[in-house]
């Protein structure tokens, strides 16, 4: 098979780095070999030259342009990562550079003239991270998001709307009740939901505000049950300590009515639960002989 024909000529990672250093000098900052991937860190000034070398150097012969993408590098700005593959030697090389311009105006030279495939990849990276690629024919219009989209979605300071708009159902503690018999909900805090995202104070406030609005709407519609369930949330908003007593008095809606509604709903719920428990007990009783047999 032709693909494997030149496998024996494949350079080792060390040789590859040595060769690139020889050709590009200070352009090569360093390299890492971890998790079965060889990464060469390149200075932005040598970015295009490195790829031209990788493509044209007969010993390297990286002909397949695999991918190019951005990575959020926290306060240092953004990295651009590109992966090349050689169909003749079977080597894979990951090249990585740190964009100039920090988080405000990240800039990385365009590879469009070296590999055709870089065109869309760079457009996508610009669309997602706002990294400019001087030398690219046309980064605009935005390739994946809508044309008038604002913001750079894959930056870490861009929060996922669906995670902000809706409270996490998992914040409730199992069966912990306040004195009125309502389920205690906590204000979403750091590390509540799975994920690296931090429901920071601003987001928490936003989430609470949203729920307040919906509670107000429900109250206006006279939906008693909705008020009953939303009511503790309102109290949470004003009193961050969820275990604080007298949550009903803090409600912005008519406190007496809300407390009444809560009590009625709670009574109903208890009655239901009792009936259910009885049923479950009966079922368990039915089941026992079978289990023993």
């Amino acid at each position, binding site marked *: 098979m032709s693909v494997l024909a030149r496998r024996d000529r494949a350079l080792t990672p060390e040789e590859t780095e040595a060769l690139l250093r020889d050709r590009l000098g200070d352009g090569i900052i360093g390299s890492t070999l971890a998790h079965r991937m060889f990464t060469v860190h390149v200075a932005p000034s040598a970015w295009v030259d490195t790829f031209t070398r990788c493509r044209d150097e007969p010993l390297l012969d990286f002909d397949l342009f695999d991918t190019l993408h951005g990575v959020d590098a926290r306060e240092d700005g953004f990295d651009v990562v590109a992966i090349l593959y050689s169909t003749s030697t079977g080597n894979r090389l990951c090249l990585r550079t740190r964009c100039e311009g920090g988080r405000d105006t990240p800039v990385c030279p365009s590879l469009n003239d070296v590999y055709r495939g870089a065109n869309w990849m760079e457009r996508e990276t610009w669309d997602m991270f706002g990294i400019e690629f001087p030398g690219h024919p046309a980064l605009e219009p935005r390739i994946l998001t809508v044309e008038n989209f604002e913001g750079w979605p894959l930056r870490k300071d861009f929060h996922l709307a669906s995670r902000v708009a809706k409270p996490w159902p998992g914040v409730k503690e199992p*069966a912990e009740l306040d004195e009125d018999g309502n389920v205690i909900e906590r204000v979403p805090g750091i590390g509540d939901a799975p994920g690296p995202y931090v429901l920071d104070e601003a987001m928490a406030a936003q989430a609470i505000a949203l729920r307040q609005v919906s509670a107000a709407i429900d109250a206006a519609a006279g939906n008693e049950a909705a008020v009953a*369930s939303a009511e503790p949330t309102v109290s949470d908003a004003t009193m961050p300590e969820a275990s604080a007593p007298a949550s009903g008095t803090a409600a912005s809606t008519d406190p007496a009515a809300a407390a009444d509604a809560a009590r009625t709903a709670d009574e109903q719920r208890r009655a239901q639960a009792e009936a259910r428990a009885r049923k479950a007990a009966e079922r368990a009783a039915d089941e026992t002989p079978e289990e023993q047999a």
Partner: protein
Amino acid sequence: MSRTIPGTGLLKGLAVTIKHLGQRPVTQMYPHERPDLAPRTRGVIALMDENCTVCMLCSRECPDWCIYIDSHKESVPSATEGGRSRTRNVLDRFAIDFSLCMYCGICVEVCPFDALWWSPEFEYAEYSIDGLLHEMGRLREWADTVPAPPMLDVGADAPAEVVDAIAKSDKALLAASAPAVGAGAAGAAAGAAGAGALGPRLGLGPRRRSPRSTSRAARSTRRPTTR
């Protein structure tokens, strides 16, 4: 491709299609005939509320945040005289919003007390999206449609629970001066684990059985080693 007489390709096309004229159509007449779905089919999530301990694991693991649980605490008087009364969690609300659910099955997988089950039922389309929010009663009804899990392949390892059960019963056997009844029970358990551990208990219909009557061993085949 070798050169052939022009037109043979065209004739072959006619031959292939006319060949199918006499064959039985493969169309499934869906509303008239029920589709034959595999027991593992992820159609709808059924809830056995009596198994739920309100641990909130499903709700927290759900990638779409579509499980809503409310509960309260209740004290249960002691079964024995003079014993201490215990408190337990009572489920007030358990709802799954199937308009958000992406049928990944993580909730079923993480439930430590087998309260959630997959059922192959799929006919619960609604004209209004609100109707897809299934509350506890509706989820409980689905539990009656949960089929028995299929037996595992012959090359499969016995599930961890079964292995544990065998080890335990062996221990019980080895424990000196075991009473006859206890030994009998342990022996029966070991026999069941050895012979039919991977399948549902015999004598019950293979499908459309309530999971309550599914044997423990068969149930455990669903979740071999993750826990």
